[in-house]
């Protein structure tokens, strides 16, 4: 890796780099988010920053945008040292940012959103006219059409992102940072975004693209820096590298993910989903006509770009949301279909367990003691106390057993759950759900935010469950994880299942399916 590192500096010696970071260092308590970051971003280029979740990409960009301040280090913009203490300073220095979660005021119009913070005087009237004119110009120059009087909350996500870009450009941004911009976009919207970025580059703007998707890096960037655990481990010219090399640099190991497992011996079907459709409270169709089955002793993985219905699929099967139509059966018993859809508590009784995607939001009450979380959802079990009562001893004894079995650290069931690391929190959830000996296990993002040792442990547990004859559904945004764990892969796009592949299928083929493109048509 060291051979290619630093090559980005070889070009454009005539003008100073658009952005130069020197020795940036940042800690959050015990977490060392950024260590001694040195980065040059040349003017008029698209510079990619890749890394796994938690590698420190977003922190670094938040420092550049003044949302946080570095503990030490220096920032140069166009060769001049700048002191960025707030977003205001960053804007003054010509830096604009499109956040992963849009910073838009939803009830405002596009116009109001664009002018917020740069109103051009205490009265809005004059500013409005100016913004309107400027928006017209930007629209022409960068193909950024959007109705200035539309209410932002009513716009589709792709257009909202365009408003974010317009905001930055209106503020005179010379350098635009985009944080995971395609995570929420449809492929068509992502294509449009890339065209816009190319246009920006053609006009001499500099773009920093943060992503963990190597395909995007290869498609659009000029140079790419790889971050790993808070450090920049390499910076290379994109044309001189390959996705494999980048992937290796990202994870620091040659083999991405391999799980030791024997071939599956599927038995009878334990989970069956037929023609499942789900519309959310706004009437948007999130799942349409989804059908599949999982047999005993089989892991089925769902691959897909986040936001294509995977979360809804898990929550509908788990009874958290009621399907609009369709039928679900768990271990032969209908749980949704002709009658009322069963609720989460009833589904647990049918032998369904669910490790939710977001353990902080859903899977745990972080203010609870560990032992209290170890019974969440199963607290009505008579084993934990008769009648209306809850026996502390029964709960704690049970928790201590799981702590030992699953090697949860620190081994203290009276500790507040918030004080456990991500990996151990995930183990608390897994231990709770697996120990019920469920017939069907739903697992969302099994290893998100989990350290490497725990990843291995969690994967082994899932395989052991499979070998014990359970049906497992795994949803993960990490394609590598889905491929490593699954016996079959279903690809979801726009609320539908668009294909089924074996885990050894060509990655590019799965990628095309995930992007909503039919592989045959594309080929």
């Amino acid at each position, binding site marked *: 890796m060291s051979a290619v590192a630093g090559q980005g500096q070889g070009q454009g010696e005539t003008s100073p780099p658009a952005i130069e970071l020197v020795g940036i260092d940042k800690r959050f*308590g*015990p*977490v*060392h988010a950024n260590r001694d970051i040195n980065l040059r971003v040349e003017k008029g280029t698209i510079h990619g920053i890749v890394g796994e979740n938690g590698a420190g990409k977003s922190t670094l960009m938040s420092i550049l945008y003044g949302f946080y301040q570095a503990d030490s280090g220096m920032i140069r913009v166009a060769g001049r040292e700048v002191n960025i203490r707030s977003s205001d300073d960053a804007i003054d220095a010509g830096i604009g940012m499109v956040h992963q979660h849009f910073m838009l005021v939803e009830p405002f119009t596009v116009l109001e959103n664009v002018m917020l913070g740069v109103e051009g005087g205490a009265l809005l009237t004059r500013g409005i006219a100016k913004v309107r004119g400027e928006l017209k110009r930007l629209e022409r120059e960068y193909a950024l059409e959007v109705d200035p009087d539309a209410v932002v909350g009513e716009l589709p996500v792709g257009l909202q992102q365009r408003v974010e870009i317009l905001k930055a450009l209106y503020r005179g941004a010379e350098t635009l940072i985009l944080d995971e911009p395609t995570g929420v976009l449809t492929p068509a919207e992502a294509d449009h975004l890339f065209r816009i970025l190319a246009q920006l580059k053609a006009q001499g703007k500099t773009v920093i693209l943060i992503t963990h998707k190597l395909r995007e890096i290869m498609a659009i960037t000029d140079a790419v820096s790889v971050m790993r*655990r808070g450090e920049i481990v390499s910076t290379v010219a994109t044309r001189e590298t390959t996705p494999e090399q980048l992937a290796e640099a990202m994870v*620091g*190991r040659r*083999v991405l*993910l*391999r*799980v*030791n*497992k024997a071939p599956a011996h599927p038995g009878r079907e334990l989970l069956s989903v037929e023609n499942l459709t789900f519309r959310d409270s706004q009437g948007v169709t999130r799942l349409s006509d989804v059908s599949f089955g999982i047999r005993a002793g089989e892991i089925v993985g769902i691959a897909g770009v986040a936001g294509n219905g995977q979360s809804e699929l898990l929550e509908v099967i*788990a*009874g*958290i949301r009621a399907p609009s139509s369709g039928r679900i059966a768990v271990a032969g018993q209908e749980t949704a279909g002709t009658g009322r859809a069963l*609720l*989460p*508590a*009833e*589904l*647990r009784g049918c032998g369904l367990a*669910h490790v*939710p995607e977001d353990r902080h*939001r*859903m*899977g*745990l*009450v*972080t*203010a*609870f003691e560990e032992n209290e979380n170890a*019974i*969440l*959802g199963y*607290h009505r079990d008579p084993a*934990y*106390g008769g009648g*209306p*009562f*809850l026996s*502390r001893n029964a709960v704690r004894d049970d928790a201590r057993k799981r702590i030992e079995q699953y090697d949860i*650290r*620190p*081994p203290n069931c009276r*500790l*507040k759950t*918030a*004080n*456990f*690391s*991500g*990996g*151990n929190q995930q183990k608390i959830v897994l231990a709770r759900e697996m120990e019920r000996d469920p017939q069907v296990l739903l697992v969302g993002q099994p290893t998100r935010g989990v*350290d*490497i*040792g*725990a990843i*291995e442990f969690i*994967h082994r547990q899932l395989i052991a469950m499979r070998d014990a004859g359970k049906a497992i559904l795994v949803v993960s945004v990490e394609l590598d994880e889905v491929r490593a764990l699954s016996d079959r892969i279903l690809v979801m796009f726009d609320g539908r299942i668009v294909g089924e592949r074996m885990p050894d299928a060509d990655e590019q083929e799965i990628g095309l399916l995930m992007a909503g493109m039919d592989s045959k048509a594309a080929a």
Partner: protein
Amino acid sequence: MSSPIPAGPDRKASGDGISAATAEKPKALARPAPDKLPAWADYALLPLINVVAAFVVSGLAVLMVGANPLEAVKIMVFGALGYGEGVGFTLFYTTNFIFAGLAVAVAYHSGLFNIGAEGQAYVGGLGATFVALALDHFLPWYATVPIALVAACVFGAAWAFIPAWLQARRGSHIVITTIMFNFLANALMVWLLVNYFIQPGTMDPASRPFTEGASIPKLGGLFSLFGADLGAAPLNLCIFLALIAAVFVYVLIWRTKLGYEMRTVGLNPTAAVYAGISTSRIIIITMLISGALAGLLALNPVIGDQQRLQLNFVNGAGFVGIAVALMGRNHPVGICLAALLFGMLYQGGAELAFDMPQVSREMILVIQGLVILFAGALEHMFRPGLTRAVNMISTPQRRRMVEAGEASR
């Protein structure tokens, strides 16, 4: 397919293995400041500091009217605890405040702020009064009072039910609706008292006095066994009812499945849904319990003391419950202690107004507001400093470990 994930050597060397690190180090190291406070400081010292702050500020007000705050404290403490009758009144008020504090705390555990205990208690008194008026001529007190107790609970719960239902099913904010229900309770009770309960030929909007058939035995006799003379203090059996209610709330919140569900809803509603807990059901059940506890409060003044329904008999006790719950950290033990403190304030304050005319009883309202302010809204003011101080004093070696850890990075 055979090689498991190799953990590179650089991974081990880095600080990424947080799980292993926290296993050996005390948790205090792994968390930012706000969670570091040891339990004794969190549950005893911090509330104490908040109360002291409230008293210091109130003391300034006393100084401003030219009185001596220390002298005032002395008079208050003597007035509240110095003689039998004072103690009797103190405990009588304490009874009210325990009920009110419990009502607020139960709701709090489900994440609900019940500002309506005042109105719920008021309407609870209506239920007790109906029973008393209907039965006091026919039944002995020990038959009437249990029925009145149930009626007070039911009426208080019913008054809490509508805001609960509106919150659970229509999403109307319970803070706003319970405030409004206080006013509605007031309008309802004034209307009933002025138009229906009032005794013909009198100007006093109150019900007819209850007979012995609707009374609760006073504790004067019990105390006289120990040589204490409660005098005219209306302290009655209700105080035991309040203590039973406190035990009930403790068991409910920490030892039952329902309490577990309530706490889950209060701390993380999304996780509650995931766990198969119906949040709207919990909201309604919680408010029914909360309202019933507030309703119970009414027994103490209405049947235990005045023996008739009077205008505004709750007299702000429902609001004191907010201060009591906040100061008692929503735990029954804390609530009983905080209720005792406020009981002393109310009784001692009355005494104070007598001895120091320039210091009127409204001083208590100021202290009450300041306790709510310091223990509730400003709870983060003393916490960081206290956390630093406690950690420095109690665990110097831990501090050295932190510093060593910082230096090594």
